[in-house]
């Protein structure tokens, strides 16, 4: 399983045709205490670059953009009652599990790896 990042601070961990999506530690830190996570429904189609849900903190509401295209097979419903899990460990707390689309290989290739993302965040802060 490997991890990739978007410029909008989502991460995607994938293995074969399955992937998990969440928000980065940088994102949770910038948002501050997260108080609500709006999740999509199981079966929802995600399109790369399009918003599929949102996270709400005390400061702001931010959309979550799909890093890759696919179909939601499971949502992390624990976040409904405990959105603070995203603050506690952004990389363990996935938001949705998806079945990747056929063309998602190229989408994954275009995302940043851990090192590139680290550099990217340095320029952001």
């Amino acid at each position, binding site marked *: 399983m490997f991890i990739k990042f978007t410029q909008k601070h989502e991460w995607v961990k994938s293995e074969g045709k399955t992937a998990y999506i969440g928000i980065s530690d940088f994102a949770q830190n910038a948002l501050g205490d997260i108080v609500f996570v709006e999740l999509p429904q199981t079966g929802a189609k995600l399109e790369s670059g399009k918003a599929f849900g949102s996270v*709400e903190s*005390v400061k*702001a509401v931010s959309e979550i953009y799909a890093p890759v295209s696919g179909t939601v097979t499971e949502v992390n419903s624990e976040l409904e009652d405990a959105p603070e899990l995203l603050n506690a460990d952004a990389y363990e707390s996935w938001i949705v599990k998806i079945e990747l689309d056929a063309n998602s290989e190229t989408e994954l290739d275009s995302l940043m790896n851990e090192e590139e993302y680290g550099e990217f965040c340095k320029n952001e802060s």
Partner: protein
Amino acid sequence: MGKNKVIFEKSVNNRIAYSLPECDVPEHNLNKYIPDKFLRVNSAELPEMSEIDVLRHFIGLSNKNHGVLSGIYPLGSCTMKYNPAINEELAKLAGFTDIHPFIGDENSQGSLKLIYELQKMLSEITGMHAFSLQPAAGAHGELSGLMIIKAYHEKSKEYNRTKILVPDSAHGTNPASVSMAGFETVQIKSDASGNVDIDDLRASIDDKLAGLMLTNPNTLGLFEVNIKNIAEIVHEAGGLLYYDGANQNAIMGISRPGDMGFDVMHLNLHKTFSTPHGGGGPGSGPVGVSERLAPFLPCPEIYADNDGKIRLNYDMPDSIGRVRSFYGNFGVMVKAYAYILSMGAHGVKSVSENAVLNANYLMFKLKEFMKIEYDRKCMHEFVATGAPLKEKGVSTLDVAKRLLDFSVHAPTVYFPLIVKEAMMFEPTETESKESLDEFVEIMRDIIKEADENPEYLKTAPHNTSVGRLDDVKAARKPILAWNSDKE
């Protein structure tokens, strides 16, 4: 005494405010008139208090409130100006308050004339062809305007036009209204000087373009200097331009959205035209359009007939329909009308001149000890950043909370989202130089505290009726109602 107690906690068994005389008519059983299922079984448990205690309770609450009459209120983007008292006096006239909405246009010529003339005044101030005063708030005006854009494209059978471009500095209501109207939002970047990034705008245009929503001056308090160019690009691609009038207070009598090329706009009477914001309304968000969009305005249209009478026109086949019962929040219109008439053309222009002057004065003074995000002349508001304070462990939130200790309202914080640790100041034209200077000195002391006593800043406020509230707990586990069963 009884500080911060809710009224139920002050209740004393069998205490009453007013004693009714003995009943001297036969008693009736309620069951005879009201079905059992509608009759209360348990007591309502209303607080039992004397009249003076009730009054003390509510006067006490009102004293804890901060309003523009208690101190400076530089809440960016909200235009918390002073609302002249004469507006209220006129809105209280019996001829306005006692009129029945079903009285018919023949018998309500005075009120209809006021609406008609206000439409005309707003058209003149903004350079739009026509206005409807129906929308009851700013976001309601946005939705109505977007519905007009949709109706326009559908009339020309261009059903493919589903995209509305919105700059990343926009008010959150813009993308929300776009979704409500059934469009899709596409975000446009801002360039280094805080204006719309023209390259990103060009790149976002295709045959799905329905329109662009723009606030000018934008939420950074900066004037979009490329507006003519932007209008051309959008119009050439077949899109319409929507003007968010939230910041109209900066440009009255100087430039007009209609002349800039905008096709649809809304105004916030409760911002620019000095009607109250309090308690969520009532507001008023008139929607204005260019000539080609006039047939799509909400129905009925209020117009002057050839005989001089003001009439209602329901024969509008292309109209988006009614967006509000009756004619909108009429009392608010009376106040805005009174304001415009008492200011006059010259006065309206000096409102904007002084709003811009006050904001620039405040910005240049604060620049002595704070970082201003975009270092250029601003319009009626500007954005400072608390980012340099972060190294001292102090955040924008701490500064905002500390201001409350000085009986000053905080600026808008953490908005616009594109500025880190944003603080958005809008002093408005109604603050004097003395009150601005006083505010600057308070800010200077607070910023100094970040060095000298950061702990005190981080635990502020200290002099208010309640201290630092737990925002996180309030959002995660809100308690929304008093529960008398509680211990």
